[in-house]
């Protein structure tokens, strides 16, 4: 991730040798002035407001865990089950993250750097699995075969469900990486493999790590898939505490362990990212990397892609269609597909708009202003991604009850707020990427021409980052469409979303009735993921890496 206060390396220059820092060669539009700007009070206030909202679930956890008492918590945390949960959670996170890194990177390399036939089609097909809720993927697999269960089932299902989170940034990074560096390495006598490993992968490293970070955090908070696959992790245990033993304090204590785990993940990503940085000679020197000819390997790679898409996309969709055809009679009554689809779209679109608006000040602060505190503020928002939706829902219920007399509880606005909190980091990723790319010089010129700050924001900055806002919107939208656990708690009584109705049917083994809802979720979420693919498709490496 490029440090926010570094000048955007925008310059005319020849390709740089690997690892070398390239300094801008000419005066340019894109460099932050050296003087320290005035403190951005307005932005700070807005960002602090957002941070307070995001921190609320953590405060709830601390209050509740405190209520349980230290001895109870110690007893709960230091017991044999914790060890096995920890082992389950950690090994799954490690294995799936590594698999996603390999599959995502390999797929991105083949699509971006080789003459693979049908590249534009593959570029879309490998992203669409992001639109399929993990619990639908599990449902598809689990309903077809008893083999898919426990650890192996969880690894298979989760890898297929989340590898696009690595693919997207890596593909963008590979597309825009400086081909000159590879050529220099080769000309200096490095072998193909060495060049690939040290230069190609090296250039994509920040993108790979950024994707892995998202994958790991998402895995920590996953529930629905593991419930179907009968795999126990910290999150499933937290749900058990809520569902079985009327014990919110112990659930809160366990959630805090989960928060600690995500600290470890964040720190690990920070360490792995290291101090080294990758530079390129800037967009003006960009050449498109020559595509490698696959030659006789073409059929093998094509088969590989077919298998990947078949497993990730074909199985859940196929299983859903199979179940629709297979079971003719349904005993359960539920809301209609259209009604639940309408509510799903309504809540998700509102939440996506809200999260995008919340992300804007935080991204502006982190990208446009110096300071460790701003960066810390920005990075801390990632923690939310690892807190299970159920916990966030209970936190909002708690605050609504305790301090607002139940105001808005089980109403649409609170549900929308819960979505916005849950998926805020994803919105930030999108907005930040675009903002880092927009040259601050243009804003300064506007300011120097006498425009006020707000006018500049409105007339210059926002239009510049519009694609990023659209990406943020899409990412939050498709995540909210597939959200289940917070929805179950906060949804207005009598209303169903596609996800809750699917879950109700699936829980009652009414697969035939559940399946159309799964297909509808995929259909609604597929469009934004297609748009996302297009967004990252155009994004230069430098900014994609910043995600």
């Amino acid at each position, binding site marked *: 991730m490029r440090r926010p206060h570094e000048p955007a390396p925008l310059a005319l220059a020849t390709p740089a040798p690997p690892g070398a820092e390239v300094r801008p060669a000419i005066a340019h539009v894109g460099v932050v002035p050296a003087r320290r700007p005035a403190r951005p009070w307005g932005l700070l206030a807005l960002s602090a407001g957002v941070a307070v909202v995001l921190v609320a679930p953590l405060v709830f956890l601390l209050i509740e865990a405190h209520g349980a008492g230290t001895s109870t918590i110690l007893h709960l945390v230091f017991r044999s089950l914790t060890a096995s949960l920890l082992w389950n959670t950690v090994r799954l996170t490690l294995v799936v993250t590594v698999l996603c890194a390999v599959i995502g990177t390999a797929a991105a390399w083949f699509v971006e750097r080789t003459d693979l036939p049908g590249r534009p089609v593959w570029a879309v097909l490998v992203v669409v699995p992001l639109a399929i809720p993990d619990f639908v993927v599990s449902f598809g697999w689990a309903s077809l075969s008893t083999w898919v269960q426990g650890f192996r089932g969880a690894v298979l299902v989760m890898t297929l469900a989340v590898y696009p989170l690595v693919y997207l940034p890596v593909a963008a990074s590979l597309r825009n990486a400086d081909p000159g560096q590879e050529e220099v390495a080769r000309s200096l006598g490095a072998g193909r493999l060495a060049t690939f490993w040290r230069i190609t992968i090296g250039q994509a490293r920040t993108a790979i790590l950024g994707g892995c970070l998202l994958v790991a955090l998402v895995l920590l908070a996953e529930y629905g898939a593991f419930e179907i696959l009968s795999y126990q992790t910290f999150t499933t245990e937290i749900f058990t505490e809520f569902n079985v033993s009327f014990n919110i304090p112990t659930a809160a204590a366990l959630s805090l362990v989960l928060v600690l785990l995500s600290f470890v993940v964040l720190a690990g990503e920070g360490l792995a990212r290291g101090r080294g940085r990758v530079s390129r000679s800037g*967009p003006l020197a960009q*050449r498109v990397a020559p595509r490698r000819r696959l030659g006789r390997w073409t059929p093998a790679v094509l088969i590989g892609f077919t298998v990947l898409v078949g497993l990730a996309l074909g199985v859940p969709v196929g299983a859903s269609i199979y179940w629709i055809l297979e079971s003719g009679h349904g*005993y359960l009554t*539920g809301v209609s597909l259209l009604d639940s689809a309408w509510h799903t779209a309504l809540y998700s679109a509102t939440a996506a708009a809200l999260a995008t608006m919340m992300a804007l000040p935080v991204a502006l602060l982190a990208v446009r202003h110096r300071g460790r505190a701003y960066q810390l503020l920005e990075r801390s928002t990632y923690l939310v991604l690892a807190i299970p939706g159920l916990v966030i829902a209970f936190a909002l219920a708690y605050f609504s009850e305790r301090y607002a007399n*139940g105001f808005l509880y089980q109403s649409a606005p609170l549900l929308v707020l819960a979505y916005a909190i849950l998926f805020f980091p994803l919105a930030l990723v999108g907005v930040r990427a675009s903002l880092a790319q927009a040259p601050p010089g243009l804003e300064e010129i506007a300011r120097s021409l006498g425009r006020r700050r707000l006018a500049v924001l409105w007339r210059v900055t926002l239009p510049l980052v519009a694609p990023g806002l659209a990406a943020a919107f899409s990412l939050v939208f498709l995540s909210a469409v597939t959200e289940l656990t917070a929805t179950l708690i906060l949804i207005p009584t009598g209303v169903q979303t596609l996800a809750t109705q699917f879950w109700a049917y699936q829980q009652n083994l009414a697969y035939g009735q559940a399946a159309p809802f799964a297909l509808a979720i995929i259909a609604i979420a597929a469009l934004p993921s297609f748009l996302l693919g297009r967004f990252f498709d155009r994004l230069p490496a430098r900014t994609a890496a910043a995600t």
Partner: protein
Amino acid sequence: MQPHDRDAAIPRPMYRLTARRALCPLLALAAIAAAVLLLAACGGASPSKGTLILYNGQHEQTTDALVAGFEKTTGINVEVRNDDEDTLADEIVTEGSNSPADVIYTENSPALEYLQSKGLLAPVAASTLARTPSRWNSPQGDWVGVSARVSVLIYNPSLISAGQLPTKVSELADPKYNGKLAFAAGETDFQPIVTSYARTYGQAAALKWLEGIKADAGSHVYPDNETIADEVNRGAVAFGVVNQYYWYRMRAELGASGVHSKIAYFAPHDPGYVLDISGAGILESSTHKTAAQRFLAFLLSKQGQEIIAHSISFEYPIDDGVNTVAPETPFDQLQPNPITIPQLGDGSTAIALLREAGLL
């Protein structure tokens, strides 16, 4: 550098955007947000005054049929909120005096006993309580028993014969069932069996038994009874502990041709042969207590009990004047363990034991 390279490198679309054109999507976004929030606020506002809110932990199909019958008979509108009964109980505790719920309807007594112990339930009308044998009601009269079911074994005859099945729940811990047994430790239906076992054999023995069945089940500790029924039926595991109606519901869903499993009862009065009571209570915080009382009265009316008997929920109506078709063994011929509602309690003993055994 060649000219076309330079062109390609400038991220043209972004610089080209005029402010006005770029603002269109933004304005649209803001407009959508505002409009939708407004809409959501209106659409999601609390239901109209006369509406009863039911927190439902019972199976949806039973409740849906009952609600439809009640609405038709009384003209009172009912909004149903479905979730696990314990999550609903947690929600009610979190909501406190602001709880939107009027009535809670659960599959098992412990969730109701828990709410009762927190003082969150209001007394049920005596005339309604009188329709259920008093041993199946709240001892304090704060909730009423509505229907019942018993714990049984579900087995796949191609994997284990009826003769090889245990007849006592204590035998489940026998190492000979290693890899054959399935159970759902986190399922509320399982806790009464643990409570019953501990009452009969003592806590220490219960813990040892739990460790034994945990070892036997291995990876077949499932999240719920539906999964057990499904997995046994598919042949993923030989047999499991469930409540009897899960098998009937599965048969209804899959059709007779899709059923490859059978059910077997425990020996009479065995601690594993537990009768579970599904019941309903009225929230102390409810502002619609009269309508709520009518709903409970309806559940226990002939009409309500007939709906339970003929829905595909396959539970026993608590009124023994109403006969069921599907569970072949008539209600009055069941021979469950004599454990009582207060002895089953709020399930905390079972939870402590399950936790100690590392199952929760």
